[in-house]
């Protein structure tokens, strides 16, 4: 598993279908029971932390409770010290960004979106 696969594996660990934000199918909402996650995939060198993001997308009529609960789940999983995700030849150190999460408006008022910031440091020799 390489570093980008490790990042995908991390975002796929929250019970949602995770898409690289550049490969989201048009039917993502309907194909995934009204909720999914997108993330940015970026690469950096050792000792050069990079800020990446993800978004939670929920189909919900004026209700933030479910998407907010998922946001807190991710927040608590990363924790204060971050999470180290190993891959072949190294590891990712994923930490909460600042701000960690914020609600975003969508043109479609039935869509709820939370934008998540993380900081990733790549522990790799390549």
């Amino acid at each position: 598993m390489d570093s980008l696969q490790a990042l995908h594996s991390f975002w796929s660990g929250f019970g949602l279908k995770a898409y690289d934000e550049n490969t989201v199918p048009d039917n993502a909402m309907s194909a995934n029971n009204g909720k999914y996650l997108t993330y940015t995939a970026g690469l950096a060198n050792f000792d050069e932390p990079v800020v990446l993001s993800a978004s939670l997308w929920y189909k919900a009529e004026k209700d933030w409770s479910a998407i907010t609960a998922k946001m807190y789940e991710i927040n608590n999983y990363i924790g204060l010290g971050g999470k180290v995700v190993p891959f072949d030849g190294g590891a990712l150190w994923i930490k909460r960004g600042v701000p960690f999460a914020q609600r975003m408006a969508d043109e479609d008022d039935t869509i709820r979106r939370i934008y998540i910031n993380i900081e990733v440091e790549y522990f790799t020799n390549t």
Partner: protein
Amino acid sequence: MGKFTVIPQDTFTALQLDAGVLLKTFNPATAAAPSDEDIICATTGGIEVSCVPTYSDFGEDVDNCPNNMMELKHLDGWDCTMSTTSLGTSPELIKLALGAADISGATYALTSDVSIKAGKTYYTRSGTSPNYVYTPVASPVLADIATYYEETSPDYKITPRRDLSQSDFSTIWWVGDRADGGMVAVKLMNALSTGGFTLQTSKNGKGQISIEIMGHVSLNAQSVVPMEFYSADPVTNP
């Protein structure tokens, strides 16, 4: 890439991550997560751990002797310290920063409990009024409950002392995480704050107390350096 532009393969496994924590007690054999009451204080800006030797060069004043001759180098001792900036202002933390100080002000009353409550601290009373001494009971027994006191309000007064007491010294641990899930730990023995108490406040900010703690050699173990180091992977210490 140049052939010398490399880093060791094991760099990542032994990387120390995050600031770690100062603890009153820690068992490196088990590396169990600390309980809340064992954490000394919240800190800011990380924690500095230092163990620096001091040497004498016995050849320094010898004619024709080059400086730093290996066979004439003498290890005088070690300066072992931990320093940090604390965000806490509990009586225990202030006493730690002061070093030679006493905590007082707690009030006690005979307990009204009719059975020993698990997790509760009971005290016995000795001495005479107004200088009663309340001592925690290590293993309370029901038969003696009528003589037990309980704390009705905690200590709140911290008084610096003119003289040093052996009880002012304690063991302090710093423990931090490794990237591979293991731990790094440093034990500072016979630790005493030598930097005193300095509180810095700021508008719209949090008060910060600078702490510098030094380890000391004991008369009973004069060859023991007052600092020990531990570094273990999660296999050694799961």
